């Protein structure tokens, strides 16, 4: 069990981020429209996800480990770098921090403005589709993380446990507070997940391509901190250059004005 702990924790954090985003959408649909259609949308999405897992799960376990690691390594590497890119841009101030409270308010405003349309047994089509899309999209990412991490480590059970705990914790907290989980440090969590996805993607992709890592599995103990250090370095460097450009932008008109004043002073003193 101790050996599976890093796997469970990685999957838990990654899936918690996805579950928080799904919860925001479900709450916006349920509280502003109606719960019945929202739950129908959620159930439909969960059924589609179950079908995807039912088809993908057994298929992916049939792949030879080397081919699987090559494909999964590439996908995780791409995913991880995209997560890191966004997290670094947010940390540096180039992109607005993902704010669940404002995302919730945007969804609420859109939900209030949409007309109520009935389609067959769905009494509110907008609430149904909003909830369906939100749960399906975020759920797909959860499924992807569980299958890739679980199968690569040949421990799908531990990965599923990590994901299940994350979904239950977020759902129970959401039901208890009946509000989006705005106080969760989402960017920090995304930063951490980006580091883990990139590190595991690099490691498994390398193994799939035929590389023998120095120190074998212990190489991950070096790869993770190095990826973290480089990413934090990029964030610090971009934050500094962003601040400098802001300061330069603010001081530009002032400098021009000062220049004009001193020129005027010079002219009058002469």
């Amino acid at each position, binding site marked *: 069990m101790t050996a599976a702990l890093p796997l469970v924790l990685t999957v838990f954090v990654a899936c918690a981020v996805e579950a928080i985003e799904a919860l925001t959408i479900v709450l916006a649909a349920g509280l502003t429209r109606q719960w019945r259609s929202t739950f129908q949308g959620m159930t439909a999405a969960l059924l589609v996800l179950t079908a995807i897992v039912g088809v993908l799960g057994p298929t992916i376990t049939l792949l030879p480990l080397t081919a699987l690691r090559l494909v999964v390594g590439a996908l995780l*590497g791409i995913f991880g770098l995209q997560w890191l890119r966004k997290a670094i*841009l947010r940390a540096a101030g180039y992109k607005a921090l993902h704010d669940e409270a404002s995302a919730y308010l945007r969804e609420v405003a859109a939900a209030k403005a949409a007309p109520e349309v009935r389609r067959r047994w769905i009494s509110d089509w907008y609430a149904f589709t909003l909830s369906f899309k939100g749960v399906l999209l975020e759920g797909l990412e959860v499924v992807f993380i569980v299958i890739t991490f679980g199968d690569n480590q040949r421990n799908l059970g531990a990965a599923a446990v990590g994901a299940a705990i994350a979904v239950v914790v977020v759902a129970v907290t959401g039901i208890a507070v009946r509000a989006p989980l705005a106080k969760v440090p989402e960017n920090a969590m995304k930063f951490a997940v980006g580091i883990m996805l990139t590190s595991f993607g690099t490691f498994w992709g390398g193994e799939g391509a*035929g590389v023998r890592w120095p120190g074998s599995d212990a190489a991950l103990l070096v790869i993770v901190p190095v990826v973290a250090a480089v990413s934090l370095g990029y964030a610090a460097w971009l934050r500094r250059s962003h601040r400098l450009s802001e300061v330069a932008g603010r001081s530009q008109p002032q400098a021009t004005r000062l220049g004009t004043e001193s020129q005027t002073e010079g002219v009058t003193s002469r």
Partner: protein
Amino acid sequence: MIRALKLFGAFWYDFVIGDDWHVAAIVVAALALTAVLTHAAGVNAWWLLPIAAFAALAWSLHRATSGKS
């Protein structure tokens, strides 16, 4: 039907590739090069993927902050 296929394709493109396709292209190219070096040239190129990942991230960040993407 065509609209549905386009939406389906756009969904998977966004899901797998994301905001900057250059990152995906660099990762795939680095993996291919690593496989070639390892199998054809007999070089244990474990260092190539981390370097490619850091370079892809730096380049993508540079493009994003200079308004090119």
